[in-house]
């Protein structure tokens, strides 16, 4: 901590023009700190930021209930909570996007009012949103300096100075970046680092990261963690929002757990276990492993033979895949994201026309049949991209719950909608699937990610279904929601549904599946009985496409 403190006083003078405004506020704190050090009280570290008794109400929801939060200089402070626990609301308050109903915010000991993000930025608070706020057609440099352009003269931006500063900043964080690269061409991991650069360029001393790993590959996660550790070592305080327990344990110095808008406790990552955190977060014991009985497979419900599919650019990303899913079993497909899983699922569910091959449901050829026909035949589908395919965010919850059968009775009579039927279904499904929403008439987009997913699950699971295709059913969800959705999937299996599960989370595939296939570069390289599955071996196949010593030579 003392390292962090000296680090911070080192970094303070490097603040740019944007941070100048923050200096009058920061100065007394630094002075206080110096005074504290001089007085021999160096062990007492003044918090970089303090939130006291923050309360925020929305119609029907108490999003934040007297939350206290204290962030020390140079620490990585994890804010852990379920979807909808109030983490994002709290951070939006800190970033000036929302105004709290009660409570106060202190930055370096001085009470501040944050009316909008500009206020927050001026006071050294930076935020990296889960969905990036970058202009894809602009260069890295243009994105970073947007709104804080340093002018070479009254007409032209000093591009060279900006490039230099960006390079230096990136270097100090342990990576290199080309300031003239177009942001839209860069990987998600790099885009995220540009967001961090953007915040630092504006002089951020406290950096908020809202679920930064949700969009990253495991490798990118490792890289961003290295960047964050370096940042913290140099004195930047980091608020790390997440619901992934192992990540929080890995990266955080301190953990604050929030449940239903309240701080329910703090944890020390050195001593806490995932189970401890899960219990605090959900408020009850959560089983992190799935309990299920052995499958009783019946007839083949879904048969895919020699399926090849092209992606949007026309390249063949699924190459001759064949497999069968029987009633009452879960067939899991493991694989690193982007190995053709999404395209294959879209071909099976009628969203994408395959190049060749056949899809059969209960013996009937349904290749390239319309999504509606497949729906009538008993196919339920949880799409990987819930906000794009699964929901109409601007529509209310009740409309979304009837998104695929609005045209049938009881929802429609001779083409006229029956509002009461929509409402009735919503009133039945909302408690049944534990969807946390103020009412069924609020836009689905206002719900948390987990509750949005529950809306899809509720809709798809409440149909009479024979085949369930679940693509990344729990991506981005908290443990409580994951447990719930896993139980629902198992229950469907036990009721005789054939389940095709696709997930980039190997643990999820291993825990749920009865048989496991591994996809690598568009091919189903192996199919293993879950009983014989070994995590390390499957992980290796996912990474290399090689199924074992014997077939190593034939790997692509």
């Amino acid at each position, binding site marked *: 901590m003392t390292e962090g403190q000296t680090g911070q006083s080192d970094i303070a003078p490097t603040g740019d023009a944007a941070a100048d405004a923050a200096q009058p506020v920061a100065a007394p704190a630094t002075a206080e700190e110096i005074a504290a050090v001089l007085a021999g009280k160096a062990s007492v570290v003044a918090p970089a930021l303090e939130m006291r008794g923050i309360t925020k109400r929305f119609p029907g929801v108490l999003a934040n209930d007297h939350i206290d939060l204290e962030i020390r200089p140079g620490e990585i402070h994890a804010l852990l909570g379920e979807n909808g626990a*109030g983490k*994002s609301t709290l951070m939006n308050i800190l970033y000036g996007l929302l105004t709290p109903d009660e409570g106060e915010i202190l930055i370096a000991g001085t009470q501040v009012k944050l009316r909008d993000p500009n206020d927050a930025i001026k006071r050294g608070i930076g935020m990296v949103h889960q969905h990036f706020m970058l202009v894809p057609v602009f260069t890295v440099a243009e994105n970073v300096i947007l709104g804080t352009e340093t002018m070479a003269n009254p007409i032209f931006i000093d591009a060279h100075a900006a490039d230099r500063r960006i390079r230096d900043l990136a270097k100090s964080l342990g990576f290199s970046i080309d300031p003239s690269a177009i942001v839209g061409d860069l990987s998600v991991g790099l885009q995220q680092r540009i967001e961090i650069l953007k915040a630092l360029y504006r002089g951020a001393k406290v950096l908020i990261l809202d679920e930064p790993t949700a969009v990253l590959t495991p490798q990118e996660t490792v890289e961003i963690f290295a960047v964050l550790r370096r940042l913290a070592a140099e004195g930047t305080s980091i608020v790390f929002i997440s619901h992934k327990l192992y990540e929080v344990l890995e990266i955080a110095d301190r953990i604050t757990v929030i449940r239903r808008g309240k701080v329910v406790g703090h944890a020390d990552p050195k001593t806490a276990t995932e189970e401890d955190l899960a219990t605090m977060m959900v408020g009850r014991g959560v089983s992190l492993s799935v309990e299920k009985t052995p499958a009783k497979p019946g007839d083949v419900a879904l048969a895919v033979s020699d399926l090849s599919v092209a992606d949007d650019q026309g390249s063949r990303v699924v190459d001759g895949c064949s497999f069968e899913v029987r009633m009452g079993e879960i067939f899991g497909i493991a694989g690193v994201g982007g190995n053709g899983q999404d395209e294959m699922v879209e071909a099976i569910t009628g969203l994408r026309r395959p190049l060749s091959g056949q899809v059969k449901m209960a013996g009937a050829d349904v290749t390239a049949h319309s999504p*509606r026909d497949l729906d009538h035949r008993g196919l339920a589908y949880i799409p990987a991209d819930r906000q794009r395919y699964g929901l*109409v*965010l*601007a529509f209310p919850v009740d409309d979304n719950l009837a998104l695929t059968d609005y045209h049938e009775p009881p929802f429609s009579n001779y083409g006229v*909608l029956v509002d009461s039927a929509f409402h009735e279904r919503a009133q039945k499904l909302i408690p049944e699937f534990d969807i946390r929403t103020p009412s069924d008439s609020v836009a689905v987009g206002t719900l948390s990610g987990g509750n949005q997913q529950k809306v899809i699950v509720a809709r798809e699971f409440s149909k009479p279904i024979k085949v369930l295709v679940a693509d990344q059913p729990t991506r981005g969800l908290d443990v409580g929601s994951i447990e719930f959705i896993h139980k629902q999937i198992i229950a469907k299996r036990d009721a005789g549904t054939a389940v095709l599960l696709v997930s980039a989370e190997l643990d999820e595939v291993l825990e749920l599946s009865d048989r496991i296939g591994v996809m690598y570069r568009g091919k189903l390289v192996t199919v293993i009985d879950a009983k014989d599955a070994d995590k390390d071996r499957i992980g290796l196949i996912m990474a290399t496409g090689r199924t074992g010593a014997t077939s190593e030579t034939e790997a692509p």
Partner: protein
Amino acid sequence: MPDATPSGLTIDTTKVPGIGTGGGRRGLLVTTILAIVLGLLLGAVLIVISEVMSGRGFDLAVPFKAYQALIEGSLKDARAIGSTLNIATPLILSGLAVTFGFRAGLFNIGGNGQFLMGAFFAAIVGAAPIFQGPLHMVLAILAGLLGGMLWGFIPGILKAWRGAHEVVTTIMLNYVAYLLLNELASRVFRDPTATFAKTRDVTADAQLPILIEGTRLHAGILVALLTAFLVWFLLFKTALGFEIRTVGINAFAARYAGMKAAFIAVLTMSLSGGLAGLGGAVENLGVTKGYPAEYIVNYGFDGIAVALLGRSHPFGVVGAAVLFGALRAGAGSMQRATGIPIDIITIVQAFIILFVAAEPVLRRAVPWLRSRRTPAASAAGA
């Protein structure tokens, strides 16, 4: 539906106020009223300035006199109200046409061409002496609807079939319609007895009846109001409307849900064109009563303004069109009473639309509107 043509043209109708954006209906109403008030205030400032510049001196009372005359001219008596509603009638239908497109994610700026087609079809059928009685009027109106639908169907099918962007095709068809109908009205269908090129007058049977004795208020307003109700019902109370709105906000989800986006595009463009054509029909059967070869209108673009102010809601469109109707009906008496040029009213309309478009700025500027926004803002959070 954020879609891009090969040329890179991107129109995201989900950003149109009242469609994909949150904020709630009450918030929309408040900001709309605010936009109108601000538009009128800026108009008042402009009136004062124009008085000073025309050498009549600085007088803060002039805007009050002007607006008083404006209100009298549009609302004073049955005659004035009739005039307001007559002007509002084609604006309602043009606004509904644009709204209907917006709801399906389509930006129909071909209202002018569709209006002309509707007017022409109605004028030709209305002038044909083969029908008699009220049936003649009904047939003439339906002919106008059909003409507009035809002109909306073309960009619709081009979009569904080849992905041609409707903004490009509809605006081009505006010129095609004008020139084609100009040719037809001045040669093939020309009224030989008329001194200038126009089609024959519509027969008395086909004309829309006057609703109130002593005014010019014709039955077109009833057609417009009934249509507004039907459009509302179709959009919000039918399965087809559910599909149209889903396609409009999220075409991906529409496909997932088994909706046929291409079919919806063709149908919506056709109906949108039909609504504009209906506007042409009632204007022709109620006011113009014959198609002049050089018929220059601006209802297609007025319709966009009305749809924006009406927040893409059929009832909002009615309100917006009546407001614009009143402003236009009163503009003449304002000019007579105070000498303020009619053009001021056009500028006031433009200001109002500008404030509607600048809604996010309005919400930022006015604190108590900001706090209303928060439930929607939480969409990003929690």
